């Protein structure tokens, strides 16, 4: 129902280039998640697609039609604002039903739909409240409710779950996934939550400074990041980077150890990337490198152990929750070579095997 595509779209505020010649094609019914550091232009991009922000260069197509200059109303998308933007003078019920009322649905249907959505969003008992009488998370849910009741062809979600507790967030995430399945609507979803990005996305788009750094399926991004930035950005806790250079037996880890890895291609590897969960703590003798435990963070399911490994710096190792290592203890770190990535001096990925 709605394909969305941007062709060299750009956005400037005065001299400030916020979005730079951005190309993006979104298929009908696709679920695209946009991630990127704070201030990289995600909200701006959504607002451009929505028609709320003028596209200062390039073009925007919806269903093949050039809508660069069209008004938001004509684009028929729904949006959840990062700042909610609820109507302060309307109750939750009227906030949510407003779009339907404009679409001239009969009152009965509006009531039914709003109540169904409120049910899903656990807002039923709040329907007669005004936004200022709600908690932060409740407001955010109203903002979601307002978008979903309308069942439009495309959704734009700007960090829609950021103020919800973990349990609710999981519920809502499942609801959104369900919505996507049942409506078959195209969805563009901005989030900072790795789990949301990983579980919801057909495709993840990683942005930085108004540019797309890489896009692809969650697996692809996680397993074969195209560059250092993506590698570090995707996955939490983030990937460890170990400075390295080609050595006698495979790769030399800044003199702190070495690892057997054959490199195909011309570029010389400069960084070895290894995710905490692909590292394990072993006895000092048996690891690829060693160091002393500096911090150990208990996370319930597991423990993050930060090991100071000389020139390699602080390395985060994901250990079992009941890990016996103590602060100050010397440990060895074993690297799962098959799952680590290599990057050249400029940060581009090198195919390793």
């Amino acid at each position, binding site marked *: 129902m709605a394909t969305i595509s941007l062709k060299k779209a750009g956005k400037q505020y005065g001299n400030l280039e916020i979005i730079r010649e951005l190309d993006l094609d979104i298929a009908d019914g696709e679920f695209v998640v946009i991630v990127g550091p704070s201030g990289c232009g995600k909200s701006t991009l959504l607002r451009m697609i929505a028609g709320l922000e003028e596209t200062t260069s390039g073009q925007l197509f919806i269903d093949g039609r050039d809508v660069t200059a069209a008004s938001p109303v004509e684009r*028929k998308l*729904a949006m959840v604002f990062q700042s909610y933007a*609820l109507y*302060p003078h309307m109750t939750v019920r009227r906030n949510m039903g*407003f779009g339907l009322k*404009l679409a001239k649905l009969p009152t009965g249907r509006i009531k039914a739909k709003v109540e169904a959505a409120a049910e899903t969003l656990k807002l039923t008992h709040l329907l007669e409240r*005004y936004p200022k009488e709600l908690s932060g998370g409740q407001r955010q849910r109203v903002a979601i409710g307002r978008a979903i009741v*309308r069942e439009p062809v495309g959704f734009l979600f700007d960090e829609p779950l950021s103020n919800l507790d973990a349990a609710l967030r999981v519920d809502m995430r499942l609801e959104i996934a369900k919505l996507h399945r049942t409506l078959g609507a195209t969805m563009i979803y901005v989030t900072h939550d790795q789990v949301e990005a990983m579980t919801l996305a057909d495709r993840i788009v990683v942005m930085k400074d108004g540019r797309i750094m890489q896009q692809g399926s969650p697996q692809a991004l996680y397993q074969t990041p195209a560059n250092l930035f993506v590698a570090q950005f995707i996955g939490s806790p983030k990937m460890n980077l170990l400075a390295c250079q080609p050595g006698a037996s495979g790769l030399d880890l800044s003199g702190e150890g070495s690892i057997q890895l054959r490199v195909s291609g011309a570029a010389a590897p400069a960084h070895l990337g290894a995710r905490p969960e692909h590292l394990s703590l072993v006895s000092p003798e048996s690891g690829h490198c060693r160091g002393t435990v500096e911090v150990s963070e208990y996370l319930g399911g597991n423990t993050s152990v930060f090991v100071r490994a000389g020139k390699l710096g602080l390395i985060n190792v994901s250990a079992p929750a009941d890990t016996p290592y103590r602060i100050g203890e010397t440990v060895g770190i074993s690297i799962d070579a098959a799952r680590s990535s290599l990057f050249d001096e400029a940060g581009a990925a090198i195919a390793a095997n």
Partner: protein
Amino acid sequence: MTKASQRPLVQEFRLLATPVVLFLLVFLGFPAIVNLIYSVSDVSFETLRQPELSGFKNFAAVWSDSAFWQASWFSFRFGLLTAALECTLGLFLAIFLSPLIERRSWLMAILMLPLMVAPALVGLMYRLVLHEFVGPVPYYLWTYFGASLSFLGPGSAFWTLVVVETLQWTPFALLLFYMAYQAIPSEIAEASAMDGAKSHHRLWYIELPLMLPTIVVALLIRFIDGFRVFDNVYVLTGSGPGGSTASLSIYIYEAFFKQGAIGKAVAASVILFVVSFAVLYGLNFIASRRKGAAR
């Protein structure tokens, strides 16, 4: 804001409200007391310093004076009509023209011009403007239609005054509304656009409700101003043939100066003050009750 945090802070708020209270006490306290005495006294310009108490005679005199009721009715009608007209027009212009004005504030200056001339002088100018022999309006009407209306004749004087007042004071409403319109957060307008609101929907469901407090204020102020109209009406029609266009202000002014009935004039003012205070208090009360119910 919630009642909450205030309790410990009432003291500080009191302090903030003190200057205005003191100021009024100093500058209106003495006159108000004198006036209250006058209102229950037999007093004239010769006996300003020795008013003779006469009970509520003045109030009775005002109450039974048909001219008082005629003036009240005129003021009420005039205030209501002009307030409604000015606010409607002002609202329309503020919203419809805001895209133009946003970029060129001098357009606002042009629309504000009518306010810049003292109402008394505007009244004077209208004596010229509407004059059958030297006024441009009748002149053009004679030239192009061969006849002119009698703008200040007994039947039309009221409406002419309404138009004159409306033309002069619409800019007042316009400026207030423009300010309120501009203050609407753009995000809320954006949200409504995403909800599929066309501009008329936005106007009706979002902008007008958000401007409602200002609309109420403008209506109130314009009603009060229309109600107490003085200068231009006085200059233009005197108090009208037979007092037919005497507003309450003119009634009080004339009682005060022309008839020297100071006690009566003050008594009329006291009645006016008490009644309008009661009305405002009541409105406030209803409004806050409503809010309370919404909780």
